[in-house]
Every structure is written in C-alpha cells, then in structure tokens.
C-alpha cells in the first residue's frame, strides 16, 4: 500500500476581511461576500514567506508521520512565491528539519497546482521503489495587485504530505493529470503581480481542466461521485469549486469539509491540498476522497485517496486545519497594516 503517511498544514494568524478591502476601493462588500463567497483571507506576517510556511506545514507532517526525517529521500516545494528567483526554498527546509543532506530537493512552479505536482512526484518516487519516503509541499504567500479582483482571494498558507509504504493513513488509489497550453494567468520576471485574462480564467481554463481531469479520473477508477465521502477542488474563489463539483455530480455535503476558501482565501499552491488536510482531520477509516487541483497555464492533477485505520492515530498529533483557521488568536488587519505586511508599501531601511 502506497500513500500519505503524514500530513500537516499551516495557516498564519493574520486575517483581512473582504469588506475591509471592498471599502478601501469603493466596491460593494456584499457583492464580494455573496458573489465570490469570500468573507476573509489569511495574510502572512511580516516575517513569514513561502519557506517559513512550508517548514511549519512540514513540521506538522513529520509529527503525524512519526518517522526519522533522515529517511526522507526527496523534498519538493511547489509555490509561485518562492522568496528567491535563484536559490532553492527546499534547501532551507531540509536543514531546518534535519532532512538530508542525502536527499533530492527541487522547487516547483505551476501557478496554483505546484503543490499537487510536488505531491505527484513524491508519490511516484515511492511507487517506483526509488525511495521509502518522499515529501511534497505546496505553500504560497499569493500575490494580487492592489485594486485587482485577485486581492480579495490571494492569501497565505500551505500543506505538506509525506508519502510512504508503511503506516499509510490515506492510500492513493488513482491519479490523473490533464494539461494544455492555456494562458489564463501569468507573471513575468520582474513583475510584482500576476496578470489574468478576466473571464477567460473561467470556462476555458479552470472548468475545462478541472472537469477534464475529474471526468477522466472517474472513468479511470470506474467510480461514481456517490462512492466518495469527500471531494475537494482548487478554490480560486468560493463559487468555482462548488460549480465544478456539481457539474461532476458531487453534492454540496461532500464538498463542505474541504471548502475552506470562504475563511482562508486562495492559497494558490496550497489551496486544494489544504482543503485535503481539513478533510483528513475528520475523515474516518474507509472514507474515499476525490481531489482535483488546478494551476493556470494550465493543468489539473487529480487524486483518489482511501483513508485507512491509521488515520485515527495521527489526526490529533498536530494542529488541525480548521482549528488554525478558526483560532481565537487570529488578528484582523486594517488595509494599511495589510499593505505593510504584504510589502506593498516601502519603508526606510535601517
């Protein structure tokens, strides 16, 4: 049996409400809250970036996996906000967590699906027998230009998954990927913020790939939507994943647990996979989970997991995702603090 042996998420404590952003720009808060179904989003603290988020999530994954970090043969971090253009994020992480130096490390980038991509490669290593354990991580401090619709959703957070053969908590039953060249969203070098094709990001991009991957995954597995207890999709806003899920035949109650976007925002490479951690936090042995990510550019990775008896042993070994999202310690920022924390304004350097 090959699958997830440890998982963990990380959510910063800072938040900004959609209404705060809407009021800043003279938008109608109600249309954001109802139209995009976004109430608030996470914001990275001034000392947080993709590396710190990835490390925090990976630490939680190690707590649940209960393995010697030295046994991990590969670490991949998927993100579109790696702090360095040249210099890997993964090397910081392995040194911080005592992994390596006999380890393969790479940083991935594929818009919002870099996290599931890291998982896909980590899983494939274990499946091929190349190594005993491999870790795939998706983490982002997502960028969205001030005043752009993306500013309501681009948030921070991430999740890490350790794949192995022993003490599997969620077996990987099937995978499928679906990729085309579709330029719906991009950021060139030296540009601070991504650009996007407006409504072109919808039907020809998000839905085409999520549905294309989802349908192929169902066909490949011979399974039907009703065979699953849970389904989770990439969450660029509140509405898209629910619409995609319904088109595939899933019901609202199958999607509720992983649908964290209304209080988290879109954590880009960490989006669908952090939804997956929220599901694993409450899943019962035997439950089946359907997950499809999406990354602009564009592609989707699909996974079908079956939860094992071991899940009950690990769920309480690290902070649960919804507990972090709903923590009483969360700190709401006003717009001025938000732009300062997101480094959208410049201060004197000392």
């Amino acid at each position, binding site marked *: 049996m090959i699958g997830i042996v440890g998982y963990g998420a990380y959510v910063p404590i800072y938040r900004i409400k959609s209404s705060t952003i809407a009021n800043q720009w003279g938008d109608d808060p109600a249309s954001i809250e109802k139209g995009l179904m976004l109430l608030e989003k996470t914001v990275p603290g001034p000392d947080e970036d993709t590396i710190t988020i990835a490390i925090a999530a990976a630490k939680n994954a190690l707590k649940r996996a209960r393995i010697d970090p030295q046994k991990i043969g590969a670490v991949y971090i998927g993100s579109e906000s790696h702090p360095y253009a040249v210099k890997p994020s993964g090397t910081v992480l392995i040194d911080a967590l005592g992994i390596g130096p006999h380890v393969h490390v790479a940083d991935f980038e594929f818009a919002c699906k870099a996290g599931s991509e890291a998982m896909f490669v980590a899983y494939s290593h274990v499946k091929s027998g190349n190594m005993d354990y491999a870790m795939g991580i998706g983490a982002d401090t997502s960028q969205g230009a001030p005043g752009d619709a993306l500013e309501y959703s681009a948030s921070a957070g991430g999740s890490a998954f350790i794949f192995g053969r022993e003490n599997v908590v969620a077996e990987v039953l099937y995978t499928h990927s679906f990729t085309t060249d579709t330029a719906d969203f991009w950021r060139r070098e030296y540009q601070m913020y991504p650009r996007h094709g407006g409504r072109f990001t919808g*039907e020809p991009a998000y839905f085409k790939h999520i549905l294309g991957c989802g349908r192929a995954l169902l066909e490949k597995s011979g399974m039907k939507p009703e065979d699953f207890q849970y389904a989770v999709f990439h969450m660029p806003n509140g509405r898209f994943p629910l619409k995609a899920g319904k088109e595939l035949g899933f019901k609202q109650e199958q999607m509720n647990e992983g649908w964290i976007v209304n209080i988290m925002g879109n954590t880009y490479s960490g989006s669908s996979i952090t939804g997956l951690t929220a599901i694993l936090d409450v899943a019962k042995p035997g439950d089946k989970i359907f997950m499809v990510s999406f990354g602009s550019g564009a592609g989707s990775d699909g996974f079908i997991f079956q939860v094992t008896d071991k899940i009950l042993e690990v769920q309480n070994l690290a902070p649960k995702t919804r507990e972090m999202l709903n923590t009483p310690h969360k700190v709401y920022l006003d717009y001025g603090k938000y732009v300062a924390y997101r480094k959208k304004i410049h201060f004197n350097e000392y």
Partner: protein
Amino acid sequence: MREVAIIGVGMTKFGELWDQSIRDMFAEAGLKAMENAKVDKIDALYVGAMSSGLYAYQEHLGSLMADYLGQVGVPAVRVESACASGGQAVRLGFMDVASGMHDIVLVGGVEKMWDVEDGTFVLATAADQEYEVYNGVTFPGLYAMIARAYMDRYGLTREELAQVPIKNHKHAVNNPNAQYPFEIDLKQVLNSSMVADPLRLLDCSPITDGAACLILCPLDRAKEFTDKYVKIRGVGVASGPIALHDHKDLTRLEAVHLAAQRAYQMAGVSPNDIDFAEVHDCFSIAEIVVAEELGFFEYGTAGKAIAEGQATYGGKVVINSSGGLKAKGHPVGATGVAQLIEAYLQLTNQAGKRQVPNARLGLTQNMGGSGGSCVIHILEGM
C-alpha cells in the same frame, strides 16, 4: 431606385466564444448566410465593426473577410459608426443594391470583445474623448444620467425600469443564439451590483463575441434564390450630438426621432403599423427612451407601458423578441445586423417559440454612442 430584399441570414451563437477568432466568427456567419440564401458568389461585401483594431488588433476587415469567405476580388469595405456599425453596413448594402451597382451583396457585422481586458475603455472611444471620457465618464455613466433625468421628470420608478431587462430575458429563453437564455426576476435586478447609479449590472448589456450576416438582392430577383425573403421597405439614418451634454433634452435621443421619421416616410407607414421592433437596449433606460422616439408610446409613458406588458406578446408592439442587446448579447458591430436577422426570421415565420403572431411589418433600431448616430430599417414580410 430598385427595391431590395433579404434572401438569407446566418449568425454565430452570441456569447463568450473563446475558441473562435474574429475571422472564424465572420466566416461562420457569412457562410451560413450564403448557404441559407443558396448563393455561392457575392458581388460586394460590407462589414460592420466598431473597433476591431482595439478589440482584436485587426483592421482591414473588408479584405480579410472577403478572403476568408472565398470571395477575393469583390469590392469589400469595413463600416464604422460605433455600436450602429452593423446597421450602417446594412444601409450601405441596401444603397448598393438599390442603386443598381451590385445585385448580390453580403452585409455582416462582427465584434470580438472578450480578447481584451478592458472592454469598457474600448466602448468609451465612441463617446466624446475630449469632453466626456477625459473627465472619467464611460457609457454606463452617460446612460445613468439619462436615467436620472428621466426618473426625475417622469417619476419612473426603479422597479419599473427593471421590467425592461426582465422582459428581454424572458424573450431570450426561446432564442437558441442568445448569450443569456434564462429569466431573471425583480429581486435579482435590484440586488445586482451597482454600476452607475441608478443602473445596476442587470440593466446593462453584456460584453459579447459574435457575428451576423445577411444577403441582399434586388426584390425582383429574390424568387430565383428562395421563397423566404423580406423586403426592406424603409431606411432612416441620422446623426446626433456626440456628447450627451449637447443634447437639448437629457431625456431625448433626437437622432432616433429623426431617423424614425425618415424611415417611416420612406416606408409610408406609421408607428401604429409596426408589429414588432428590435431596439437598441444597451441599457434598460435606452429601450424606454427609444420606444418613445419611435412613436410607440407618448413621451414619459414608455416605462410604465413596458412594465404593464405593452412591449411583449399580446401588447401594443413586441419589443426585442430576440432578447435584445441585454439578453441576446451585444457584440457591438454585429448587433445592427442581428436585429435585421430577427426581423427576417419573424417575417418569414421562422422564429419558432418566439414567433410574433401574424407579423407583417418589423422595425429595427440600431444606435451609436449616447445617441450620436442611429439607423432604422423597416422590413415587410412577403
């Protein structure tokens, strides 16, 4: 002057046509029209497009479309009059046939609007750049001012204004080519996003990709090709002030009135003779003002009349049986041509579930800017 007939029509579905370029759309509509009219060769081509340069980075549409329709060599030209480009192209095609210069003329309109990020900016190039746009106003703002003035003078309520898009969406349900073939209700209109007070999102026509084409020929040759043809009985065109502030009255669109008088005179008919009309409801207030300028209702009464059902089936005159710009969609250069296609379908009894019973005379009204230009055609079933 020869009498002129429409002998065939073709159009794309209106909507977000991500898989089709501007030439793909026009070729689809043009070839459908030629097939419908049973012609494989045309004598001349007119292409209406408002801003293919800014929307699709493509000018020189006359030659491009002649090439892609397999008609290289024919006289071909692109026609521009903002959102009235399609209607103006039809008028030029009409004059071409009527004058005896050409017999088989293909007239089309096209706009590829979804390939750019800021369509509102492109549309605003049809307003007065120096006096209006530089001060920050775009068309939703201009029509909002018309709506405010109208509501203030005539007591039109927000709820009555909402009845225009509600009616047009109801009509679009039966139009398979419509961008939004579904109904909306009062609550949805009143709760939709505010665009320019008092106009909300569901008061505004959408951004649309699409193309529409038709084939004209001398009336006395129509039977050579088909038994389904209609006569263009009247044509009226007028220009109006380009800037809204130069209108003598904010609640009037004088170019519509002038074009209508010319079309009625040429056709020898009056507003009471018209069975149905396709009008330029770019914003809900526009349909109300236009319906008055066309003489269907007294000034200040069209809003209430529409709310009372006078502009739908069973009323005084069916307005926008296709769904109008609001629900059928508004690919600006194609709109004027698509209006004539709806009239053709109604007058040849091919409009399916949205057929206006016993339709004999139809009117199409296509408008540029905030009344800077207007083209009206009156068509008769044969």
